[in-house]
Structures are given as structure tokens and as C-alpha cells.
């Protein structure tokens, strides 16, 4: 469960946009691509590479999303996380 930022995954290898993830499917946050850093605000909330997360649900009208990471749940609008890329699959 511990963040394994050292995973030597080449950028782009098996990555998908977070928003492409199915509800309930686990994934880990991927290393950001050069020039596309993870927004500071998200990083402060714990969105750092290697962190496991999953989409708990989408709101009744489709947006925002409820995400679980680091043992807590957070709602974010889709537009705020559209730059995030993840590697599907559980960390363990």
C-alpha cells in the first residue's frame, strides 16, 4: 500500500487518463509527462506519483467525481483531474 514512486514504468507504458478509469477500478498515479506537471493543488491533496486511487462514483448528473486515495474520499470536478494519468491495477 506504500507509495512506490520508484516503479520504473516508462511514461506512456500502460497509462490511461484517470477519467477513462471505470468506477470501482483501482489504479496508481503515473509519473507526470515532461511539461505537464501535476497541479500543485492536487499534489497538496496527496495526488503524487505512485499513490493508489479509485473512482468511487460519479455524481447523479455525471460530474463531479468522488475519488478515494490515501484513505480518504474527495470530490473533484472532472475538468480538474483531466490531466492526470494513471496505471490501472492495484499496487499490490
Amino acid at each position, binding site marked *: *500500500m*506504500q*507509495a512506490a*514512486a520508484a516503479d520504473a514504468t516508462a511514461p506512456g507504458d500502460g497509462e490511461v487518463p484517470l477519467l477513462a478509469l471505470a468506477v470501482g477500478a483501482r489504479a496508481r498515479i503515473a509519473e507526470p509527462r515532461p511539461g505537464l506537471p*501535476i497541479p*500543485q*493543488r492536487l*499534489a*497538496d*491533496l*496527496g495526488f*503524487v*506519483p505512485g*499513490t493508489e486511487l479509485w473512482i468511487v*462514483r460519479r*455524481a*447523479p*448528473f*455525471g*460530474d*463531479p467525481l*468522488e475519488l478515494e*486515495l*490515501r*484513505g*480518504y*474520499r*474527495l*470530490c*473533484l*470536478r472532472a475538468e*480538474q483531474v483531466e490531466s492526470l494519468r494513471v496505471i490501472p491495477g492495484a499496487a499490490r
Partner: protein
Amino acid sequence: MSAAVELVDRPVRVALVGAPNAGKTTLFNALTGSSARVGNYPGVTVERREGTLRHSPRPVRVLDLPGTYSVVGETLDEQIVEKVLAGRLAGESELDGIVAVLDATTLRRGLGLLRELLKTGRPIALVLTMIDEVRARGGKIEPARLSALLGIPVLGVVGHRGVGMDPLFRILQEPWRWSKPLALPPADDAVARFAWVDEVCRKIGAEQLEPDTRTDRIDRLLLDPLAGVAVFGLVMLLLFQSIFSWAVPAMNAIDAGFGELERASRAALPAGWLTDLWTDGVLAGVGSVLVFLPQIAILFTFIHLLQDVGYMARAAFVVDRVMGWVGLQGRSFVPLLSCYACAVPGIMATRTIQSPRERLATILVAPFMTCSARLPVYTLLIAAFVPHRALLGVVGLQGLVLFALYLLGAATALGSAALLGSTLLKGKPSVFYMELPPYRWPTVRLLARQVWHSARAFLKRAGTIILATSVVLWALLSFPRSAPDPARTPAENARASLEASVAAHVGHALEPAIAPLGFDWKIGVGLVASLAAREVIVATLAQTYAVASKDDFAGLRDALRSDVNPATGKPEFGLPAALALCVFFVFALQCTSTMVVMARETGTWRWPALAFGYMLALAWTASFVTYQLTSRLAG
């Protein structure tokens, strides 16, 4: 350490820092009790809360800083926190200690904030809240181990139950005795910070907690695409109903009580302007302040209950998409809905909106929502001038006009929000993020205290100014005084005194400006008087038309209908002017109380002044168009 152990005669100052929902405010209330003072940081909408530590022989001032996930200033809240912690905010003295408040169930996020705080070099103590929930979810929390690892004092509490509070009360009195943090490796970015967090969590065995199954089960229902929307609708309907009708008996009682008090004062005191000042100025003014209390109490009971239980965030989650279309947030919904009762509690309720930009937008459009004070005006004018007739045999025309007025208000509010978002408040929309806290049982004591705080804040911050304006408006309507003529009825005397007043002169002076809207000077006087509160225009019109009492609805309605212009011999007032007046009331910010509350909540008179200006411009234009169009169609 010893250098600081001097006998300080100034109060000790400590600040609580933590994420929203970390239980910081509950802790603050438990620490300071009723001594809390709520204000604003100068010139901004950020709430400042400070109180004195209870049970402490030494004066300890506790500052409750705004909830924040990071102390690197991005949002307004964070900038305030950053400046206060650095001792760089004007008017804030240096802190003797920082209390980091972290929700023990979310340590793997929360410790990131602690890591930032450790960099400030000030004495720090860590308080872990909601330790009962960690245990309930199969986890264990050992403050002593965390303390050994970090070097700083660590305490576990359950704030709303008072568990673990005694040691906290003790250590807060002497921040300079707190043990110093151990040296830490540098962590300049979030990646390094959270790597440290993960390491700490592994060392103290803060394992992943079991899911909160109760919350999961409730959420599956309450956030379901169909059931969730239905529940949202029901809760909002209940809230709407409660502030609209449950408050009415109490409001009527306050009204009647003050009416009785005015009558009794008149009977007991000699006639004269001093008595008038007391009854029509002061008593009426106090009554007009207190009459808001039932709605404020009911609305805030509702809001705090929903907040404490955890539904408020869910409601915002459900409706966020819809509010997002006009540039607002899910949290804007409840305040705007409350404005149907009254904009005063509605604007106060915007405190639940965390992002300042969306909060300001909500405040600025709130007065467009059709408040209950407009209803008596609409009812009178519609009854007097809209034909009592059914359209297509089923829909009453009068009801339809009333509905259209409500719709016009709501549409304008949402439209202006969108417009403000793309003009005046243009810029990056605030990042929307929100936690859905676990469902929790509310505690009555906390609820009662929160409601009391809201009511007291209203009385202290707005009550006095509302009272003062009420007295000023009374003076405008009563001076210069004309001697009563015994040959005339009291109603005729009342009219004569009004006609001689400053307000009447203002009404006459306004005539050129309002004639294109179909209004004569009598409406002008009513508009001046309605600055105190919209419904006052009904009483003023009653006085102008020498109707014996403002409660004589039929008398006033007939007087309006049969008023003839002495110069032209034509009716003074008809359907076009009545509709124009209704439309004027849809748009104009004819309410001092709202403006006072706006100023208090935004920290400046600039915003209410701006709102008054644009709403007046809109009101004039819309009434002009309405009058010109309908009089042409009718003529």
C-alpha cells in the same frame, strides 16, 4: 526553551491549523466555549474566529484559522493562514504556538500539512481528532509513538464528546514548554512530503482502515442517480417549507407583540414627536430586526444539522453540475434557496461556500431571489389590477402573474451569476474540492451553540445598523411635522403629515425619474420608505391613501383602483403601472438589512453599493420596458 519561560503578562496566543472537516471548529468550540468572537479579516470575506481558552488561569487566546490543505498560499484562505503563521498579517500578533489539528482517520493525507507546518520553526503540538472512529474501523492510534517519532507533543481527542481534552487544556497554557520537533530530512515538494508521510505511517502502523460500511451503505442510496436526486429534492422542499411556513407563527407573534407594545406606549406616553420616535422609530426598528430571528434560527438549525450529519456536502455533490452551468458551486444552492424566505439569512448561509469567488457571486445575486417581503407588495398590486380570470379555464391569471414574477427573479439571479463570472469576477474558477465526511450523529449541544452563534452574529453585526436606518427613515417620513387638525379623521391627519414630510418632497423630486415607469409621487414616497424593508411600501401607501390601517387590504386595494389624477381626470394607476411596479420590486435592492448583511459578510461597503447600483439600473430599465409595452398593448 528556558529563555521563553519568562513571566508573560500578555495573553498567550495559539492558532489551530487543519484541513476543512478535520474537526477543528468542534475542537475550537470545546476549547473556547461561548467566548468565541467571529469577524472577518480586514477587507476580505475570510472569517476570523478567536476565543479565550476556558478553565485557564492564564489568558490564552485561541485563533481558529480557516480550514486549509496546504499553507502555501494559493487561495485567499491559505494566504491568510500563511501570513498569520509567518507573523506577517497586519493586526495579528506573533503566535506562541501552532496546534495542528488532523483527522486521525485521514493521516495519510493530513500529515502532509503537518510536514509543511514543521518548517515554520514555531512550537507545534499535534492534535488527532476522531480517534474513536479509527478504533471503530479496526485501526489503532498511538499518540505516544507518533510523538516519539516526531518529537512534538501529540494528543488524541474526540472533540464533540470531550474525550482527551484535559491534557490539551493544560499544554495550551504553556506552548514554550512543548518539546521540539526532531530534525527532519528536507521535503521541498509534495512528492518528498508524501514520501515522508508514507514512511511515518508505516512506522507507527497506521494501516489502511476498514471501509466505513455505514457511510457506504447510506451513500449508495443518497448518491444514487435516481434516489439521490429524489432525496435531495425532498430535503430541499422540507428546508424551503420550514423557513417559509414554520417561521410564520413566531414572526407574527413578534409583529403582534411589538404592535401591542407600540399601542401600550402610545396610551401611556403624552402625544408628541418623542413618543412617535419611540414607537414608530425605535420600537418598530427593534421589531424589524427581531422579526428575522425565527427564520435565521430555523434555517441555521437546518444547515448546521445537515452539516453535522454530513448531508450538506452530499447535497452540494448532487447539485454541483447544475450550479456549475452558471459558474456557481453546489454549495451555492442552499443559500440561494433560503433567499426565497429572506436574503438576510440566505447571505449569512453563504459562509458554507469555501471558495471566496463563488461565495461573493452567490452573495451578489442572492437579492434577486423572491424573498417573502416582496409577497405582500405583489399580492396587493395583483389583487388590485390583474383581472380575476382563468386562462384556458384552469390557470388563474393572477396566480400566473405571481409565478412569472418568482420565475423572473430566479432567472435573473442565475443569469447574473453567469454574467458576473464572465465579467467582474472573471478569472480562474476556484478549484472545487470537497470531502464527503462520514455520516455522524449530531449532538444537540453543539447544534444549539452553532445556531445561537449565528443568531447572535446577526443581532450584533446587522441589528444595530438596521435599527439606526429604521429611525432615520422614520424621521424622513415624519418631519417636518404638521399640526393635527381635529376636524379631520386620524387617517386624514396621517396623510397630511406624510404629504408635508421630507420623504414626500423626495417623492415629488423623484417624479421626473419615475414618471416614465408610470409612477407618481405617492409611489415615490413608497419607494423611499421601502428602503427600510420592501413590505413597508404597503403601509406607506395605506397612509398616503388615508386608509385607516395597513391591514385593511380591501380598502387599500379599492383606493388604489379608484385613485384619479386631479389634473387629467384619468385613473392614476392601472395595470401597466402596477406590473411595472411589481417588476421594479423583482429587481431593485430595496432592503437596507440585506445591504448591511452584505457589507458585513464581504467586509466592505463596496459590494452592496455596487449591487444597489446595478439592481436599481436593472429595475428602472425593466419597469420602463414593462410600462411602455403594456400601456401600448392595453391602450
